[in-house]
């Protein structure tokens, strides 16, 4: 056993590129998950009749998510620049936007449900098959997406705590970058969900 001096240098092995690669690989599995559902949508698209989703709420949610992507990116830039406080501000704003998104989604869903439109409802089952499939896909895809938003909110909350406690710093912020990557994916999925579900004829 080698001699120990008073100070033992700890070489903490860090592989930030590896960490980022791991995150991207996970994101690809997410893309395949949603991709499969988009595929179902694509194949059966021409059976869907005229759609009745609230375009205003959908557009609002799109703007909210796009802006939240901006704020999470700004939060990373702030930390890179050494500005811990600003980074925390931007992350908190991101969290707020995420909450706004979920609130709007809640109103969209409850409105539909109050009109009797939900998977398995007698009202829905009485409609043509195309409509049943459309709303089935709508609930599953926006539901799964909403779940991802919630998870993202938890992740971002953890980042806020880590940064506040100096566990994530301007010299060690790959966790924040990876959280940002996850959040951008949530935004990307919505970028495709929005036109396909809200804007098609």
């Amino acid at each position, binding site marked *: 056993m080698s001699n120990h001096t008073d100070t033992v240098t700890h070489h903490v092995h860090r592989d930030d590129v590896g960490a*980022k690669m791991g995150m991207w690989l996970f994101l690809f599995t997410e893309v395949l998950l949603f991709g499969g559902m988009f595929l179902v949508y694509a194949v059966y698209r021409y059976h869907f009749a005229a759609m009745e989703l609230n375009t205003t709420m959908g557009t609002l949610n799109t703007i909210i998510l796009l802006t939240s992507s901006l704020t999470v990116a700004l939060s990373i*830039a702030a930390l890179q620049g050494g500005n811990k406080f600003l980074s925390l501000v931007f992350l908190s704003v991101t969290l707020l936007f995420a909450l706004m998104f979920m609130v709007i989604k809640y109103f969209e869903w409850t409105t539909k449900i109050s009109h009797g439109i939900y998977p398995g409802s007698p009202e829905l089952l009485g409609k043509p098959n195309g409509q049943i499939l459309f709303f089935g896909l709508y609930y599953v895809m926006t539901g799964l997406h909403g779940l991802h938003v919630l998870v993202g909110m938890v992740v971002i909350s953890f980042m806020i705590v880590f940064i506040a406690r100096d566990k994530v710093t301007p010299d060690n912020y790959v966790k924040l970058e990876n959280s940002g990557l996850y959040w951008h994916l949530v935004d990307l999925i919505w970028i495709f969900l929005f036109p396909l579900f809200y804007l098609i004829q």
Partner: protein
Amino acid sequence: MSGNNKHHISYGTYILVWIALLAFTSITVTIAGVNLGRYTLFIALTIAAIKSALVINIFMHIKFDEPIFKTFLGISGATLLVIFLLTFFDFLYR
């Protein structure tokens, strides 16, 4: 070995990209209101692809990361494309 790349994107660039994203969104919404028949979907998806490219390259930093990441993205994108193509070749020609 810390792999933190030294390329920092400025606040201004992020904001410009955000403005572009908002602009494309408003174009998509406007286009949807105009009756262009089957072209509406094509245009909407093209715009979605452009928005994705902006988010992936700038917000997600792919443009400035090590080339391996672009390779990752390329391979998984191609895989998804093949899955879509094969499915469509199947059901279109039954």
